[in-house]
């Protein structure tokens, strides 16, 4: 089955999962032109939220894609503490869930730096452009260089008269 990121995010949102879209897909929402092949979210790793996340994905056969046997995602109130991040593969795309973002901090800080966008009637929290630039600079990966360049240009296009200094 091919990827469908909006469907994935819609499921999470409908299930009441507390999350913020971060990473490359947040850049796409802000107007970046590249194609990203996974969705990164930062979420509250509380047991209740992880259980909602697990239930919302259940129909999509989620597995831990970094484990050798692609172990099935089975979150329970007993085992949730062992996870700091989840790198999942589902029937409709890869989903990475992290609890902390470099340069920003934990979920609470990430949520504060987010904005709510409306996509076809679905309200999604997406990391704000300034925070996204900050996070990508903090990660300092060569592959983020173009994203940073694009995001800074997008920011300038939005505010042509603002002096950056």
């Amino acid at each position, binding site marked *: 089955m091919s990827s469908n990121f909006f469907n994935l995010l819609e499921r999470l949102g409908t299930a009441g999962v507390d999350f913020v879209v971060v990473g490359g897909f947040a850049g796409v929402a802000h107007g970046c032109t590249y*194609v990203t092949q996974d969705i990164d979210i930062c979420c509250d790793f509380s047991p209740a939220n992880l259980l909602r996340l697990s239930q919302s994905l259940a129909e999509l056969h989620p597995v831990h894609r970094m484990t050798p046997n692609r172990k099935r995602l089975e979150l329970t109130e007993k085992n949730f503490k062992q996870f700091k991040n989840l790198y999942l593969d589902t029937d409709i795309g890869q989903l990475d869930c992290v609890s902390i973002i470099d340069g920003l901090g934990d979920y609470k800080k990430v949520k504060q730096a987010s904005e709510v966008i409306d996509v076809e009637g679905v309200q999604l929290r997406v990391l704000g452009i300034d925070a996204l630039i900050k996070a990508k600079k903090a990660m300092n990966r060569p592959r983020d260089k*173009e994203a940073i360049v694009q995001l800074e*240009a997008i920011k300038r296009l939005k505010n042509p008269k603002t002096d950056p200094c």
Partner: protein
Amino acid sequence: MTSGKKRSKVAKNISRRTDEIQAAIDYGVDISLLIANSKKSYAERIRRHQIALSTVEKLRAARRR
């Protein structure tokens, strides 16, 4: 008009070519695409990304066959 000429014309039309926009042009970013995206809604950007991703996945699948 070739895409190179079009890009150049759009770039020239930016009345205030700031450092960030020049940096993107120098990096090789097609600024006309960023301008076009900036005029789209969030939903439209996500929809177009989905189309591009589906195309990439189809091409990859074709290459594997």
